[in-house]
């Protein structure tokens, strides 16, 4: 009966050592166990929104709205009709709400205005056509993505810190506005 030499066995072992093997379970199986044990919690965004107080969620929406509109104004020549609509409906100007329902209704109106304004800008804004502005918006969008990731991570450490939340929401607003310049279509309220 023949035998492998020690060197031959070593070569086979080296091959075995490097061999890629599929995991023994799929992620759903592992995740189900982890969820049972409470090791997995809700996703970051839903957890944050779910744990936020109503006032904080409203404030977030307002900040997102105002931030998006402000950046939109700053980066393009906003048509007067839209400017007028946005000014009238900016909830920051109506900060005194009688109730949560009252604030929510105002928020819904503001969101509608925001979406209509976005649609209008996407159709009528001709200033985004130049190569220079496209480059600028592209770079800005990439930078904002990084900031967003950083602030999302920071929120894990301090989920209710108002400063961190403001940074996050301002970034989200700026990101939406920047995407609006980049993509010639209405921008929804991503993250809502």
């Amino acid at each position, binding site marked *: *009966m*023949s*035998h*492998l*030499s*020690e060197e*031959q*066995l070593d070569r*086979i*072992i080296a*091959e*075995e*050592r490097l*061999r*890629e*093997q*599929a*995991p*023994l*379970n799929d*992620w759903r*199986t*592992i*995740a189900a*166990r*982890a969820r049972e*044990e*409470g*090791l*997995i*919690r*809700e*996703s*970051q965004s839903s957890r944050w929104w779910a744990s936020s107080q109503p006032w904080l969620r409203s404030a977030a929406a307002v900040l997102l709205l105002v931030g998006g509109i402000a950046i939109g104004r700053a980066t393009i020549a906003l048509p007067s009709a839209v400017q007028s609509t946005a000014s009238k409906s900016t909830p920051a100007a109506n900060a005194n709400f009688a109730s949560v329902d009252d604030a929510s209704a105002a928020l819904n109106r503001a969101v509608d205005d925001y979406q209509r304004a976005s649609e209008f800008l996407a159709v009528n804004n001709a200033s985004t056509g130049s190569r220079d502005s496209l480059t600028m918006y592209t770079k800005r969008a990439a930078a904002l993505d990084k900031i967003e*990731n950083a602030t999302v*991570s920071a929120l*894990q*450490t301090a989920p209710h810190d108002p400063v961190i939340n403001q940074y996050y929401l301002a970034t989200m607003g700026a990101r939406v506005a920047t995407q609006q310049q980049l993509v010639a279509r209405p921008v929804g309220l991503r993250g809502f």
Partner: protein
Amino acid sequence: MPFDQLDLKRAIDGDERAMQRLWSQHAPHIDAVVRRLCDDAELAADISQEVWMQIFRALPSYRGDSQFGTWAHRIAVNRTLNALRKIRRIAKLEVDIEDDSAMTETDTDRTFVAESIQQAMSKLSPGARAVFVLHDIEGYTHGEIGEELGITSGGSKSQLFKARAKLRKLLAHLVDESPTVVVKGKAHVAPV
């Protein structure tokens, strides 16, 4: 995507996506050591689940003193050996050279060499198999193996010597046979 500190924090905080990235990146290696230490695929899958639960439970205690993969690998080895001990599969550390258990049916998607070595390893006693896997494949020292298995360093060396001798005999056909002549279901390990 490398599993960085940010993802680690997220995983500790229960972020499923971060945990999944961690699992995706390390499961091939972690599960491979579990699979090699067990000679039963179903048992290996069960133990792998326990290993990953333990890794996730222990995440907050990971201090970054070693590479994450190394740290997780230690957990995998400990957990697997403990599980095997519990089911009395590793009670006897003597190599039973005469043991010629029947070959199991082969999977068609495995490579010939990989399948051969798996089958050959399954013919080692649990103790010899553990020593061989830990030393020759996973790179443990005999001292470390002694600590893991509760045997002396000399005992580990002796087990390895016997394991390698048996594997050299069991895998001898690899230098003579071409994989193309092997038919499905044929045992790939030469009779001892």
